């Protein structure tokens, strides 16, 4: 990704809008007793489009913003999301994306990684309360929601950042060449 000041501004807006939408909407709706967590999917998409460095920086920024707004321990979400973004970017640098299914599957897998990571960080910081088995169900459901949400996020963010993306091979519909003067 070519990061100019305008593209940086778009990335910043995407980050802020994503965090506000997650905290004010997605965290407050529950389907089958689990709320979608689309921030890891957003980080994965930005890592896929921008590379490992962009993914890591965006993941760190989103994590720090979330920790500030939820009065959590600073650095907890940053650590997990920067790792998530870095891994997504690393995938992009090693493999090509030939299908729209790839970002969706990657969002699902790395969201599960991020949810396990959040749990690991909390264990590292110390948990005084008992942990219910339903945490596992919550993680699995969140990763499933990330499959569908990540696919939509990928399409939307790719469109917004298109000016910055290195030219991708696009499949163009082949048309019959028109010859002037002939009907």
């Amino acid at each position: 990704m070519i990061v100019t000041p305008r593209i940086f501004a778009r990335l910043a807006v995407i980050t802020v809008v994503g965090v506000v939408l997650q905290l004010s909407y997605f965290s407050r709706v529950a389907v089958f007793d689990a709320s979608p967590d689309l921030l890891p999917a957003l980080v994965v998409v930005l890592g896929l489009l921008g590379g490992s460095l962009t993914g890591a920086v965006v993941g760190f920024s989103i994590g720090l913003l979330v920790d500030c707004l939820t009065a959590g321990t600073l650095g907890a979400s940053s650590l997990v999301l920067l790792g998530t973004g870095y891994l997504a970017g690393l995938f992009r640098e090693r493999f090509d994306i030939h299908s729209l299914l790839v970002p969706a599957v990657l969002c699902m897998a790395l969201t599960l990684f991020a949810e396990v990571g959040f749990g690991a960080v909390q264990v590292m910081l110390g948990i005084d309360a008992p942990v219910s088995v339903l945490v596992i169900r919550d993680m699995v459901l969140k990763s499933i929601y990330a499959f569908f949400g990540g696919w939509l996020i990928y399409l939307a963010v790719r469109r917004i950042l298109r000016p910055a993306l290195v030219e991708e091979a696009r499949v163009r519909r082949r048309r019959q060449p028109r010859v002037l003067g002939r009907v």
Partner: protein
Amino acid sequence: MYRKQVRRRRAVLALLIISSFLLLTITFGRSSGGLQDGVSTIFSPLQGVADRALKPARDMVDWFDKTFEARGENERLEEQLAKARREAAAGQVALQENAQLRKLVGLDRDPAIAASAYEPVTARVIARSPTVWHSTVTIDAGSDDDVAVDDPVIAGEGLVGRVSSVQAGSAQVALLSDNSSAVSAKVVPGGVQGSIEPAIGNPEDLILDFINASKDVTRGQTVVTSGWQAQGLGSLFPANIPIGEVTRASILEQEASQQVHVRPFADLANLDLMQVLTGGPK
């Protein structure tokens, strides 16, 4: 050129990881000072607007989700209503006797719960944390509305949590389902005392811990805040605020104690409006 890029990438990654660990070390167990307050102050109006704008969309999703749960909920509520009617009748009799006895011993104070010493401030939830490990909500009332850290927070049905941090126009509330939450509570009737902790990942289950195995706790009993006071120390929560209802008790044989499972009265997964009890004794 390529190696330079790789070195730069690794350096930035290392810097970010070190920064994360530094932040964790510095802010673990205490507030970050101005940074979180500043960011929350800037973003809380945006979150408020987003909350109001997205409410119809949120209600639509909730409608679909609640439809699936409605049948079981209906049966449970009918049982609860019948039980509440019986208890209300018994309560009226007890109140009458209590008033008469108080008059006899010369106590002319209002027998209402200690929460009458507080000034309730109504607030709306504008944001919620995304993970189950850290269960907090942001409300649109702050220090400008006399909200302070450790103020108890209730919803219509019962206790919800306490205020964990405050800014001018907003505050964060640590819910009963947050991993840092612990509330001293008692079972009524009976008076068995213990500590309410969350079962992380399940907002419909709280654990009443440190109950001796010999104590008799049965399904359907109500759990309220104990509001204990002793030698200048006291609970953060006033006495007799409803917390939940006992669903089951399991004996931990190796520890000679029992774990009592409590279903909270407040719907911790779907909070919209709540009241902060401000102005009480600290």
